């Protein structure tokens, strides 16, 4: 290996270090919790106010809780309760989908775009 190779190697390592520091620290601050129900209703809950919200689904009411800038599904009438066990959502873009009761809870920042496009 020549001197230039070492320069490239060091630069590459630096770039990797910077990329970890930049992309793996908690950016993407969330400002609100979005609740989407199977009947097409959407509720936007600002994260700065602690609230609870009951939304109806085919099995019964799902209870959403917002506290200390976080949000979770506190209670759900579904049978396996994966949504409840997921716990609190902190970061923007984090999502819980409760399929049995058709409720989706997502934290969102100021801007919301498509999640992914597939072909």
């Amino acid at each position, binding site marked *: 290996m020549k001197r*230039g190779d070492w320069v490239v190697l060091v630069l590459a390592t630096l770039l990797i270090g910077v990329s970890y520091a930049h992309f793996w620290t908690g950016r993407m601050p969330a400002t609100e919790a979005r609740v989407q129900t199977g009947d097409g209703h959407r509720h936007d809950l600002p994260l700065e106010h602690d609230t609870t919200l009951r939304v109806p689904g085919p099995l019964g009411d799902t209870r959403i809780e917002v506290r200390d800038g976080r949000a979770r599904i506190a209670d759900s009438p579904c049978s396996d309760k994966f949504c409840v066990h997921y716990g609190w959502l902190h970061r923007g873009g984090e999502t819980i989908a409760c399929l049995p009761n058709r409720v989706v809870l997502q934290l969102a920042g100021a801007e919301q775009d498509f999640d992914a496009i597939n072909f």
Partner: protein
Amino acid sequence: MPPTSLKLTAEVQDLRIAWLAALAVAIHVLESAFPSPLPGVKPGLANVVVVMALLMYGWRAALAVAVLRVIAGSLFIGTFLSPTFFLSLSGAALALCTMGLAWFIGRHHLTAIGLSIAAALGHITGQFITAWLLFIPHEAIWRLYPILLSTSLIFGLVSGTMAHALFRKLKIPAA
């Protein structure tokens, strides 16, 4: 009267590029048949050929081999003009840019190893930019970037070492 037939003569350089491109396509197709442990992680051995082309015949040869590999390779695999093709194309394009930049700045201080690392990092970066702009316009995709950047450094080192060994074995004077 217009000529009824067109005769193209292949220069020696054209034949060299065709040989190298054929080799790169073969490696590209072979590699695509292997399953990957992590989505997006591929050894990128076809780049060994592009690095060799750069070292042996210069920048334009490397460009030709890379472009031919992407187009002909995708025709063989059946991904031509599909999302995979655009990922591949943008990866190759940025890899050429970073490798070319390293080449023009310090060609006398570099071996295939440095060039290969530069190409590998450029390749994954190009793919991420395309994936982000066209297919997954969500910033969460960038959380994957550091991981794939790390693996690309490893694979760049590996394929660079291979290209370096190959280059020394062949003992071809640089262009």
